[in-house]
């Protein structure tokens, strides 16, 4: 048996009200990739934070290279050869690659940072591991995949022999993700060990040597790709058999509900984020918008829902034309919006479920009368939403922040579906929620479609797009690459479009 690089031994960690980790044990051997799989809230982050020294375990201990250690902090973990690539990169965007890599561990010459030496070491490092990169490029100009490479190099520069990767493929195109998996595989050849955290079953099967599944803070299964399947893993994660694909009937599209004509929108920095995009969504169909995050999807959704002004172009909702419109005007046209970031836009955490259930309807009858809120009507409404959308909560008067992610999302979906709606704009509707809630929300979105609602679905999860959409639009760098029928599209085809590659370009 080869050397154990990193391990947890009967680790338990308690937070007020939750047992986040309960006697969790795992072992990572040199040269292997260990996939840590689990739903949100299963305890993956807690465990990884313990391994990286950010939390101290209440019971049990961490083992690094066979030695029982008591990590005093991330610095301690780093000095013992543990490197972590966070889901949200910890880079300084306006600084150069080399500066980012050496930051905090700079080579020093006569009291000054020796950038020449730093540059030499970075180049040497990137050659040794086959991770080519321009050391003088400014980080914010690099594509996301390259920024991730900077993060990996940062860990290697600090002599990491364990790499913890937290949801590393979430921000990548399918092809970039495949490439990353290849890189990780090669890194293990040089003797590294990798802990790979994900909720994407396909990736686990593709790359892992060992799989550990967490549920409710406990290890519920240890297996290998050879012994299991996607369904098997999903069942382990959820604790019951699940439907990975939703059954849906053939769409029966009707009249056009949303029509965009050469819509251009700027981002927060005033750069064009969406460039002359035109498409339409009809009654009773789901148009999925695929794309790597940050290619204009957010601006698209915000423009349609009135949160962001249009810089040019025209938007038609039903028979009304808009070149600018307020959120409220657009909502009154029967547009419902499941926002991408439920904490930022969708809910007010300190407000009760009742108040949140009328967040964008409080001003209408019957929820208010002559400027006064009607608390009793609002309470009944909230109880109805909680009931119908299976929001698990002790009462409707608790603050929304006390709900789990899935229940928050169900509350938002319930609120948005509680009116008659003509157009549903759903942005990342199942991000970060458990499989049970995902199934439920997918079902409800399809029900809306079958009732004749036009649905615009924006998602970074390609599986979600492929599973629900009737037609698929792909955005790349603010341009609409193409709109495909769901039947003639597949992962590869869409993946290429997501990377900005069209047939004409590749043949040229």
């Amino acid at each position, binding site marked *: 048996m080869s050397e154990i690089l990193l391990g947890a031994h009967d680790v338990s960690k308690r*937070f*007020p009200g939750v047992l986040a980790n309960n006697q969790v044990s795992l072992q990572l051997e040199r040269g292997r990739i260990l996939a840590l799989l689990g739903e949100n809230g299963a305890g993956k982050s807690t465990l990884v934070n313990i391994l990286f020294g950010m939390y101290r375990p209440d019971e049990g201990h961490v083992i690094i290279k066979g030695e029982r250690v008591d990590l005093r902090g*991330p610095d301690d973990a780093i*000095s013992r050869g543990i490197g972590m690539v966070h889901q949200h990169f910890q880079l300084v965007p306006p600084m150069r690659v080399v500066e980012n890599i050496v930051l*905090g561990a700079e080579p020093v010459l006569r009291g000054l940072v020796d950038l020449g030496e730093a540059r030499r070491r970075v180049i040497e490092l990137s050659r040794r591991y086959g991770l080519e990169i321009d050391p003088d490029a400014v980080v914010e100009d690099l594509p996301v995949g390259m920024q991730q490479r900077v993060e990996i190099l940062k860990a290697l520069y600090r002599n990491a022999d364990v790499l913890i990767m937290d949801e590393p493929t979430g921000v990548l195109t399918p092809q970039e993700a495949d490439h990353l998996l290849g890189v990780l595989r090669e890194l293990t050849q040089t003797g590294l060990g990798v802990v790979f955290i994900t909720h994407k079953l396909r990736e686990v099967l593709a790359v892992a040597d060992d799989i550990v599944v967490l549920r409710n803070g406990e290890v519920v299964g240890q297996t290998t790709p050879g012994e299991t399947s996607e369904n098997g893993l999903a069942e382990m994660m959820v604790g019951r058999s699940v439907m990975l694909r939703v059954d849906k009937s053939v769409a029966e599209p009707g009249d056009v509900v949303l029509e965009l004509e050469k819509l251009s929108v700027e981002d927060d920095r005033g750069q064009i984020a969406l460039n002359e995009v035109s498409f339409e969504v009809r009654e009773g169909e789901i148009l999925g918008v695929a794309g790597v995050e940050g290619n204009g999807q957010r601006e698209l959704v915000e423009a349609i829902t009135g949160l962001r002004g249009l810089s040019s172009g025209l938007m038609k909702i039903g028979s009304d034309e808009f070149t600018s419109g307020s959120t409220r005007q657009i909502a009154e046209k029967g547009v419902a919006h499941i926002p991408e970031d439920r904490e930022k836009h969708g809910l007010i955490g300190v407000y009760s479920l009742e108040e949140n259930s009328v*967040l964008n309807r*409080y001003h209408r009858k019957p929820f208010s009368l002559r400027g006064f809120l009607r608390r009793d009507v609002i309470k009944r409404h909230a109880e109805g939403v909680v009931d119908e959308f299976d929001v698990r909560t002790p009462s409707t008067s608790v603050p929304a922040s006390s709900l789990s992610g899935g229940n928050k999302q169900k509350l938002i979906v319930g609120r948005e579906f509680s009116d008659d709606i003509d157009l549903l704009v759903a942005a990342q509707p199942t991000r970060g929620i458990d499989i049970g809630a995902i199934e439920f929300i997918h079902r409800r979105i399809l029900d809306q479609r079958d009732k004749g609602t036009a649905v615009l679905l924006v998602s970074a999860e390609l599986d979600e797009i492929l599973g629900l959409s009737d037609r698929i639009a792909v955005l790349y760098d603010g341009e609409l690459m193409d709109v495909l029928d769901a039947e003639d599209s597949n992962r590869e085809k869409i993946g290429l479009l997501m990377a900005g590659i069209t047939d004409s370009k590749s043949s040229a």
Partner: protein
Amino acid sequence: MSRSLLRTISIPIAAVVFGLVIGAILILTQNASPGTAYKALLVGGAGDSDAVLRTLQKATPLIFGGLAVAFAFKAGMFNIGGQGQLLVGAVFAAGVGFGIDGLPLVIHLPVALLAGGIAGAVWGGIAGTLKATTGAHEVIVTIMLNFVAGNLTDWLAANPWKDNSGSNIVARTPLVEDSAVIPTFGAVPVGFLLAVITAITCWMILERTTFGFEVKSVGNNRHAADYAGIRVGRIMALTMAVAGLLAGLGGAVESLGVDGRFEAGVNVGLGFEGITIALLARANPLGVVPAALLVGLMEAGAARMQFKAGVAPELIDVIQALILFFVAAPIILRWVLRMRHDASEQLQLGAGWGRS
């Protein structure tokens, strides 16, 4: 319900207790007796009907000033401009109070009060409008407007509106007409009742109306308010105008109920104490009343404390500052009282690279 109320008020109460305990130690260092001093303070602030009247009069502008800060807090804004809003309110109320005669009290007094309120609302509204339209930070703008208001009101009192009767050389307006003076019923000044009614009204607006819902939405999560179709800038401007109205009313009550005129330099500092009151009340309009009463009592009793126990009246300022300190830094109290933190607070830990 009562449990959560207890939790809410435990920090301010503990802050007051701690402030008084440390105050007692300071009294000891002056070779005085804390028991004697605090007893004198209490008697001086609540011992007889005169003392109660003093306390209520002191508390009245503090309630308005506290509400002016607390209301703005609800929309996520920090109104440092209570002082300026109070001053313009005081001078314009006095202006209407002495400038018009021949009106009956039921008309003259409300009009004078309203003039003060509107002047304050305009003053606060400037800061709110600038915030909404240009993003100018309300803290900076209200601080600067305090200076503008101070000089403007000094000038008004020294020049066009100066009291030229007899040999007056002080920068002050003439006394307001009798029909604009706030009457007193026994030991309870009507101004105080007005302040309490205003506090209850503020609470009603915040908890029961759609406008209050909008204000709190903007304060708690501006992005979600935007999503909900609330016009965030408009609410900010309106909120600051309401805050200014409240402070302006406080100034009007001072002019019409306590001083009988506006005099330059008399109301200095009152607006700033509103910040203490609002923090002690944890921005709850109903909590503003007891907080203002407490501070009002200390100020009303300070003279007697000095006389009976030989303690410098500035000690009251020190105790107030200590209370404010403990309210603003509740972590110290939690640690001493072994109170549990919220889970969210416990989970905030530093993360990441670059600290080796």
